[in-house]
C-alpha cells in the first residue's frame, strides 16, 4: 500500500502494468523485424505472410507479438518513451494522428519499398485516410470493416420471425419503425411476456431484443449508434479527415440518440450496469449467453460469431442482416480500416518498409482473404474472403459488402487531439447512456470539443 510519493509512483505503476502485460517487443535487430498486432484472430494469417516474406527475403524474418486492445496501446506508448517500440505495428485511424504529432511515425513515401504505394489498389477511400495533414502517407492499408446485424436464428424462430424480413428493416427516430417493432418482439421478460405484448415487465427482462455495445463514446458509436445517426444524414465533423468543428449539437444526432438510448428505458436493450460497466461484454457474449437476440457488430467479429456455442457445446446458428434503412432513405455503415505503420524508432526502416509493402501486397492480402478473419484492403482479396465465408461457414456476408458496393458507407472520423476528445467524450456519452445526463448535454460537450481546436490553432 505504501507506494512512493508522486510521479515516480505513476511511472512505476505504468512500468508494472506494462510488465504485467507480457514481456518482449524490443525493437528488432539483425534483420528480425518486430511486428505488433492486437487481434489474436488475425495472428495465424499474418504468421503465414511472415513465413512467405522470410522465404522471399533471405536474411530477413518477422517476429509477431500480439497484445489485447487495451494493453496494446499503453505498451506501445511505453515503447515509444523507453525506445522499445516495434519496427512495424498495426495502426488505428483513431490513434495515428496523435502519433504523427508526436513524430513517432515514419512517412512511408520517404522509404524506397513503400514509396510507390497506389491509392487505387485498395477499396475506394481507404488509402486517403492514412495521409496526414502534411499530405504524407503514414500507413499502408491492410483491411477494412463495416457494420451489420448479427442475429440468433433460434431466437427468431421462437419468435416466429422470418429471417428474410430482416433484410429490409427501416427505422426512424420517432417510433423506431419496423426495426424497433422487431426488437420489441424479440425482447422477453422473466415471465415469458414479449416486449410488444401487454403486461411486459421492462424491469425484469431475460432476453433483450437488441444487444448493447456500450455508450459508443470511445469510437464515435461505431457499433452502437453510428449506423442510425448516419442514416439520418448526420456526420461527426465539418469535414473528414481533419475536421475541426463538431456536430454533436445537431438535432439529427440528438434525436437519434434519444431514440437509441430510449430502447434501454423501454427494456429492449441492456443497461450500462447489465453489460458490466467499464468492462462491458460485447454483442457476441450477449447472444451466446442468451441475454440478447441480435445486435450490431463489425465484420472483424465474423469468425468469433460463427464459432459461438451454447452451454451444451452446440454451435449457434448465426445469421447476418444489413443495418436498417433510415430517414435519409438509405442504409449507412461506418467504413474503417487498419493499416501498418513504421516507427521512427526502427533501426532498420527500409527492411520494415519491405514488410509493410509485403503485407499490403497481393500475395499476403490473398492469404489473409483466404483465412476469412477480416476483409483485406485489396478488392480481389476481399472476394476471396467473401468466397471463404460462403464455402467454409455457409455465411452470406453481403450485408457487409453491399454497403461498400452501394456506396452507403461513411468514413471513420479522423482528427487531431483524438486522445483529448476521447477523454472528454467517453464519460459524457456514458452519462447519457446511464441516463444521468440528458441527450441535450451533448451540446455543451460539443462546445468543449470545438474549443480544443481553437487552442490548438
Amino acid at each position, binding site marked *: 500500500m505504501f507506494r512512493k510519493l508522486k510521479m515516480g509512483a*505513476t511511472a512505476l505503476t*505504468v512500468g508494472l*502494468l506494462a510488465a504485467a502485460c507480457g514481456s518482449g517487443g524490443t525493437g528488432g535487430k539483425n534483420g528480425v523485424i518486430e511486428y505488433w498486432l492486437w487481434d489474436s484472430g488475425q495472428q495465424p494469417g499474418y504468421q503465414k505472410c511472415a513465413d512467405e516474406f522470410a522465404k522471399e527475403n533471405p536474411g530477413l524474418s518477422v517476429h509477431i507479438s500480439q497484445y489485447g486492445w487495451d494493453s496494446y496501446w499503453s505498451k506501445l*506508448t511505453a515503447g*515509444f518513451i523507453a525506445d522499445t517500440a516495434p519496427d512495424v505495428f498495426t495502426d488505428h485511424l483513431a490513434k495515428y494522428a496523435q502519433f504523427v504529432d*508526436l513524430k513517432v511515425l515514419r512517412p512511408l513515401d520517404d522509404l524506397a519499398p513503400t514509396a510507390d504505394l497506389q491509392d487505387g489498389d485498395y477499396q475506394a477511400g481507404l488509402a486517403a485516410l492514412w495521409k496526414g495533414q502534411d499530405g504524407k502517407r503514414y500507413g499502408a492499408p491492410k483491411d477494412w470493416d463495416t457494420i451489420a446485424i448479427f442475429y440468433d436464428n433460434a431466437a427468431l424462430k421462437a419468435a416466429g420471425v422470418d429471417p428474410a424480413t430482416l433484410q429490409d428493416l427501416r427505422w426512424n427516430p420517432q417510433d423506431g419503425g419496423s426495426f424497433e417493432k422487431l426488437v420489441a418482439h424479440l425482447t422477453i421478460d422473466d415471465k415469458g411476456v414479449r416486449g410488444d405484448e401487454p403486461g411486459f415487465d421492462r424491469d425484469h427482462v431475460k432476453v433483450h431484443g437488441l444487444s448493447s455495445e456500450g455508450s459508443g463514446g470511445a469510437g464515435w458509436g461505431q457499433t452502437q449508434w453510428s449506423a442510425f445517426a448516419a442514416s439520418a444524414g448526420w456526420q461527426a465533423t465539418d469535414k473528414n479527415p481533419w475536421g475541426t468543428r463538431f456536430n454533436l449539437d445537431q438535432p439529427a444526432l440528438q434525436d437519434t440518440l434519444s431514440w437509441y438510448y430510449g430502447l434501454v428505458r423501454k427494456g429492449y436493450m441492456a443497461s450500462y450496469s447489465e453489460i458490466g*460497466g*467499464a468492462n462491458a461484454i460485447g454483442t457476441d457474449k450477449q447472444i451466446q449467453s442468451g441475454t440478447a437476440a441480435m445486435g450490431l457488430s463489425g465484420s472483424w467479429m465474423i469468425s468469433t460469431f460463427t464459432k459461438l456455442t451454447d452451454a451444451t457445446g452446440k454451435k449457434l446458428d448465426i445469421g447476418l442482416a444489413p443495418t436498417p434503412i433510415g430517414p435519409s432513405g438509405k442504409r449507412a455503415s461506418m467504413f474503417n480500416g487498419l493499416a501498418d505503420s513504421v516507427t521512427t524508432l526502427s533501426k532498420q526502416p527500409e527492411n520494415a518498409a519491405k514488410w509493410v509493402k509485403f503485407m499490403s501486397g497481393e500475395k499476403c492480402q490473398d492469404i489473409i482473404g483466404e483465412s476469412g478473419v477480416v476483409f483485406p484492403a485489396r478488392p480481389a482479396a476481399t472476394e476471396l474472403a467473401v468466397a471463404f465465408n460462403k464455402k467454409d461457414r455457409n455465411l452470406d456476408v453481403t450485408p457487409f459488402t453491399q454497403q461498400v458496393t452501394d456506396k452507403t458507407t461513411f468514413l471513420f472520423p479522423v482528427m487531431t487531439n483524438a486522445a*483529448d476528445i476521447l477523454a472528454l467524450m467517453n464519460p459524457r456519452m456514458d*452519462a447519457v447512456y446511464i441516463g444521468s445526463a440528458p441527450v441535450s448535454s451533448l451540446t455543451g460537450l460539443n462546445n468543449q470539443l470545438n474549443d480544443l481546436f481553437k487552442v490548438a490553432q
Partner: protein
Amino acid sequence: MALTAPLPKTTKARGRRDDTRLALLFILPALIGFLVFMVWPTLRGIYLSFTKFNLLTPPEFNGLDNYIRMVQDPVFWNSMKVTVYYVFVNIVLQTMFALVIAVMMQRLTKRTWLRGIVLTPYLVSNVVAAMVFLWILDYQLGIGNTVIAALGFDRIPFLSSDAWVIPTIALINVWRHVGYTALLIFAGLQTIPETMYEAGRMDGASEPRMFRSITVPLLRPVLALVLIITVVGSFQVFDTVAIATRGGPVDSSRVLQFYIYDVAFGRFQFGYASAMSVALLLVLVVITFIQYRVTRADSSDLN
C-alpha cells in the same frame, strides 16, 4: 598515525567518530535510493509541472499555465472529491476492522498459523485482487450476484453504479490491506505491558472496558503511525480503479491518481499531470502534518 600505547580517552573519542563513518556507510545504500528514486523524481516532477511536455519532444516552459488550468478543471476537483470520499470509507473501515482483528489476535489466540492467515490477502497483488473481485461482482455472471439473486434480492451493480462503485472499491482494498494493518497494530499491542491488564482484571474490568481504557490510549502512538501510512497509501489508490472501472461510471470513480495517469500516458500531457501530482503532494504533506500534530504521534503515555 600509529599508536603504540593505549590511550583510553582518545580511543573513546576516536571510536565514536568511527561509528559515525560506519553509520553513514550503512545509510548510504538507502540514501542513494532515496535521492535517486524519491528526491530527484520529485524535483523533476515539480519542474515539469511548469512546462508543456508530451513525453517525446523536449519540455517547453509555460509558467503557471498548468496550475491555472487545474484550478479551473471540474474533472480535477471531482477527482479530488472522489478520492477523499474513497480515503474516508477505506480508512474508517480498515482501521476499525484491523483494530478488532489485532485485539483478537492478541487476546484470543497464540497460534502463529492463525495469526499468519490474517495476512494472506496481502500476499495477493492488487491487480489480481481487483480482477478476482471484478469477476465475483459481475452483474450478470458473477457468483456474488448469482448468490444475491438466488436469495431473492435484486442484483447489485457493484462496480457499474455511481452509488456503489466507491464503497465497493474501498471494501476490496480493505479486504486486501486489513491483515497488514492488523499486523502493525498487533505489534503495537505487544508493547503494552501485560501487568496493565492484570491490574485491570484485579479491579474487575470487563474486556470491552479494558479495550477502551487500556488498549486504545496506550496504542495511540502506533495507531497514529499506522494511520499516517495508510492514509498516504489510500490517497494513491490506482490499480483497483484501473482494472475494475477505469474511472467509470462517468467520473464517479475517477480518483486523482487515475486521472493523473490518464492525462500523462493517455493524453500525453505530462506537464499538466505533473502539476496535479504536485497538488496531491501538497495535500498529503498537509494531511500528514495535521495527523502528526493531532495524534501526538511522537509521545507515548506509557512512561
